[in-house]
């Protein structure tokens, strides 16, 4: 049963990693604006696509 020391240490360590990640994400401002990013992620490539369309049109 000595393995329990290792297992628990690992589990606490994993939890600590998540805590660290949480603090890091708060610090980076992820929770400051909870709306805009949810919209922003939907438009990423559209500008490029449109430009391509346009250049295609022109080449036609």
């Amino acid at each position, binding site marked *: *049963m000595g393995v329990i*020391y290792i297992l628990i240490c690992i589990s606490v360590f994993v*939890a600590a990693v998540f805590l660290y990640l949480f603090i890091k994400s708060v610090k980076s401002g992820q929770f400051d604006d909870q*709306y*805009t990013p949810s*919209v922003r992620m939907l438009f990423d490539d559209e500008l490029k696509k449109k430009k391509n*369309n346009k250049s295609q049109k022109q080449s036609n």
Partner: protein
Amino acid sequence: MLNCYHCGNEIIENEMLVFDDKKFCCKGCQTVYELFSDNGLTNYYDFEKNPGAKPKDADAKFNYLENADIVSKLLDFQEGSTQIVRLYIPHIHCSSCIWILENLNTLNSGISQSQVVFSQKKITIVFNSETVSLKEIVLLLASIGYEPYISLENFDNKPKLIDRNLLYKIGVAFFGFGNIMLLSFPEYFNVNDYWIHQYKDFFRYLNIFLALPVFLYSATPYYISAYHSIKAKAFNIDIPMALGIIVMFLRSLVDIFFQDGAGFLDSMCGLVFFMLSGKLIQQTTYNFLSFERDYKSYFPIAVTKIENKAEVPIQVYEIEKGTHLMIRNEELIPVDAVLLSDTAYIDYSFVTGEAVPVEKKSGDKIFAGGKQVGNAIVIEAVNSVSQSYLTQLWSNEVFQKRTSQKLKTITDRASRIFTPALLSIAFIGFIGWSFVSFNDAFNVLTAVLIVACPCALALTAPYTWGNVIRLMGKRKLYLKNTAVIEQLSKADALVFDKTGTLTSNKNQQIKYVGEHLTKEELMAVKNIVRGSNHPLSRRLYMFLPECNIKKPLLFNEIAGKGIEGVFEEYHLRIGSANWLEISDQLVVHDTKVYIEIDHKVKGYFVFENEYRKGIKKLFETLKDRNYQLYVLSGDNNGEEKTLRQLVSVDTQLVFNQKPEDKLRFIENLQSHGKNVLMIGDGLNDAGALAQSNIGISISENVNVFTPASDAILDAGAFTKIPYFLAFAKNAMKTIKMSYCLAISYNIVGLSFALSNQLSPLVAAIIMPVSTATIISFVTLMSGIYAKKSKG
């Protein structure tokens, strides 16, 4: 009905423009579309239908941005050629807005990055000052319909750091709570197993290690608050909270070091976690609204000074007595002044809520706060900005003491009874058990303090208030913070402003008085006023029935007097009584436009403020519920008769109230023990709103500016005021019921504690169960009351 592809406004039939198979209402909208399509940005129109705004002519308006001093005040950051500016753009309203504004770099290569914070309607722009100036960026934004709003408030308002401490603390508390809970399970469920005896020390010491950051870091707000409250000799709820946390931790240490048990570390961390999340819930704020506005958010940052016939932009604070200023269309007059131009039309809707612009003649005094409507005018300042009639109001002490004013909340009152009671029970238990053994007496004392830790009591208010704020927000009453709800439930005197609050500053009634006008004559009037840009002409044009639009044969506008025109066979003169040489017998309070057709005066159109719908019913409902009602007005008593018919019988009407008078009036009511709720709208109510127990400012559009207040009410929800008052009262009822529930939990817990039977397991069960039931109870009840409260 056709709508403009860009801005969605209705297209007037013979003004329609077609471009790219799309229909536009005006050249401005079409230009924006062209600009976007040239740059491959037409996706703008895909996210949202008709997302745009008609671009306004802003050419000269932003000339002050050439002044390096002013620009440097506006910038957030500046190093070398890289500059960062944050601008407030009121038009931001949909995903298309975010998209186009974050693609600004395609429209101007000097902009390297732009980022929108939607909830605050702000954009942060990073740009290279060598390729593009701030003025160019602002003009670009204005030209695509996103004109930024720059006011005196931006002047030395550096960005505030966001306080993220609470989130860190919650993270740490949850980390401790979750892990300790898991590590405690083996002990709870395998009490007599052999292996637990071997490993329990490992579990326990690990628990202490995990609880340390929660005890020393996450719980600090409670220690601090308890310390302050002891110093102020007020028993607030945080004293038993802090005491509970400290006792739990110390008792756990003693238990573990003396091999006496597993301690209460899991309960302690859980308690801290739940309490902190309660704080987070209570923090619900409306980012897009501002409750702290003073005149600075209305006033421009710079004005155009006329010096040796040249126009120079200067900062508003540099205005001195005698400075000549030029005020353009839609610009705000920042200082008391004398008009030098012939005529001006000043729109005071910001200040008084009056919808009709006031006509001023050369030499008239103009008070700060009005907006010029029409052509540019020249004025001479008679004061500096801070000494103006309106701005002086802010030097009243009400505005200083406001932030430090602390209200006693219901939680505080409950804890004034609870805390001494708890301490005496703990003490009695200690005395009683000390006859048995000192060890037991110590256990009982700590157990009482642990189990009675007023977790459920302290959670009730934040969760109820948090939920009520959210529910009221859905119904268009936006509260500044949770303390307002309690005040709302206590209000017994309601004071209404008249102009802009009981009347709408959006709509006004236009009535025709005089000889009947035929259809053809009306058509002639409509076609004549169509050519005029005078605000009254515009309103009259909108008011008159639809008809064919033709160009009049003759059209001549005489500034400050009226319009002369020939339409078909009619010869018309439309304008003021003076000009038409009519002696007006009635006292002139109303705004009138006279109509003369073929040299014969037919009658006049009178512009009246329109009262909101449902006022009569509103006042009757409020009277039935025994509220004392008052109406304050800055105007004279010309409208007393009309008003009398609308409001309930014993409503007091008070006229001729200057801003300071309104403030004194509220103060006087309060000195008679009244809890005053003031509902107003303009800057002239700002003092009264600040002085009253709760100030609600009413707004046709919550995104535009409202004076500092405790709550902002959307004008559409005006008739729901009785509902909100009833709801607030019911919310208080919910809290009281929840307190009974919390106390009954405490009695169960105390009976365990006093009989020295409180095991860590019992504590670990009671604490989360009571928390969960209290939270769900108040959420459910406030939800039910939100539906059931009478409107």
